[in-house]
């Protein structure tokens, strides 16, 4: 059962990565910016969840607050930071993004302290089920279910609704979409709002799983989510999902087999580099110049 346990851990991490990374993939697909400050949005979502949940005693209210606050913050980042820098080389907004991440991480440390905040009443982190001999945590189930719901919803939204179709049209051919009456600026706000909301949900769930939220929570997202969207073919939602699951599993098994030579992050990036050398355009990406 040991290998099954590893698979469960791998899939859980994969689903978590997918929800963190999808916002990044959406922003890249639309604006070609590596939105590193997405990690700050993720951390903000986690902190809002834990603070509101502790204050009101209701986890649902915590998540709701995070889903409201994070998109506002994400849209503000676009309006105040990226929009004025769009005409410069892509490394310029990226460095601005890194600056914002450093600032936000330190702000979280100052406001919430080095130790972070612990959930007062989180029964889920310690609730385990026995499924066919494999021990599974309640939060792990919630993460997998949330990822399934989110990605199905996203798929239906982009294929079945008018707004979703307009969004996809803008991502693939901005000028033609605009000539059909789609407002590209509204699409950008929608993009940041949705991506940020998903990151906030992921942040809240990771907080629940650890039972606390500390200021370093965002750092993992800042670089690993980048690896994931590159592996997924930059800007592709389906590719991001596949890459997240692959990375989760590779890390989970890799730490067992080659853990004495490389640490967890190095294993993830070794897989990334190896796959990129074989498929330079990622899993699903079309070849870009």
């Amino acid at each position: 059962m040991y290998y099954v346990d590893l698979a469960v851990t791998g899939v859980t991490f994969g689903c978590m990565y997918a929800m963190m990374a999808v916002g990044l993939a959406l922003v890249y697909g639309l604006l070609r910016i590596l939105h590193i400050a997405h990690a700050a949005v993720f951390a903000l979502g986690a902190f809002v969840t834990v603070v509101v949940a502790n204050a009101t005693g209701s986890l649902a209210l915590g998540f709701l607050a995070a889903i409201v606050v994070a998109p506002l913050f994400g849209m503000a980042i676009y309006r105040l930071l990226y929009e004025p820098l769009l005409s410069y080389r892509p490394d310029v907004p990226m460095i601005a993004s890194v600056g914002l991440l450093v600032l936000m991480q330190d702000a979280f440390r100052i406001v919430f302290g080095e130790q972070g905040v612990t959930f007062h009443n989180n029964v889920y982190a310690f609730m385990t089920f026995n499924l066919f001999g494999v021990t599974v945590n309640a939060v792990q189930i919630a993460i997998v279910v949330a990822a399934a719901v989110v990605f199905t919803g996203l798929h239906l939204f982009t294929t079945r609704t008018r707004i979703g179709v307009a969004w996809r049209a803008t991502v693939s051919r901005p000028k033609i979409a605009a000539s059909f009456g789609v407002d590209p600026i509204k699409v950008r706000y929608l993009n940041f709002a949705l991506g940020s909301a998903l990151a906030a949900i992921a942040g809240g769930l990771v907080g629940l799983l650890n039972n606390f939220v500390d200021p370093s929570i965002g750092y993992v997202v800042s670089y690993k989510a980048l690896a994931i969207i590159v592996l997924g073919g930059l800007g592709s939602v389906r590719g991001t999902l596949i890459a997240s699951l692959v990375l989760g599993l590779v890390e989970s098994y890799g730490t067992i087999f080659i853990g004495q030579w490389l640490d967890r992050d190095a294993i993830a990036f070794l897989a990334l580099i190896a796959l990129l050398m074989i498929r330079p355009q990622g899993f699903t990406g079309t070849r870009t110049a």
Partner: protein
Amino acid sequence: MSAYEISVISVIGINVILAVSLNMISGFCGQISLGHGAFYGAGAYAAALAMVNIGNPPLALLFAAVVGSVTGIIVGFASLRVRTDFLAVTTIGVNFLFTGFVRKQHWLGGEMGISNIPGSGLGASRNMIMILLFAAATVVFSLYISRSWMGFSFRAVGEDEDAAATLGISAGAYKLAAFGIGTALAGLAGGLYAFFTQFIVPDAFDFILSVMLMAMVVIGGIGSTWGVVLAAIALTLLPEAIRFVNDYRLLVFGGLLVLVIRLAPGGFAGAVGALARKVRKS
């Protein structure tokens, strides 16, 4: 000079070498690298091993530059395969791979790193002068390259690879050359760092450092040697200058980074250029 001043100036010299060498790869040749810390680290470890085992400082520096350059050329081959943002993320990967590998190697000291590295034997202040001489030589070399045929080819490859190829410029060869030269200098900087601290740990060469070096290049004005030198000095001094807000250092640092980019997206060099044009017009 106090020991504190000597150490700050030494770090400035090392950072100037690092930023200027990164500017050759990312600024001149347009190959965005966010893993410069790995080559710096490779040089530092190479020099440390050479000093512990052989004990000859010039040989250790040479060894550091060669190890930096060889790893750089290997990574340079990746730049033939993947481009732009894919390359940026690949180089991030190289950085994590380096620190992750070194952390788990007993012969490299693992997490604890290598301590008691024999120094250059020059003493702190003459060691600082040696670092500054190397930094000056790097700046002169960078200025020379940017005016040479090689610099012209680097820029052509950076601006538009396909157009450069049409002119008969072999993009691949020049990319490898940029990586080889830039990372040799990074390795050299690593060797100087090993002499300076006599104690190295994997965390000194992490991704955050690479991002900081890229910030120096972008804030200085990507491609401009003088701008990058200025930014390297400013960004090294800034954390020292804002020591009075000790607990809020990163907050202020991040905020300033955002502000500078927001107000002068072309970096120092871009801002000076815009100012010069305005003066000429009036």
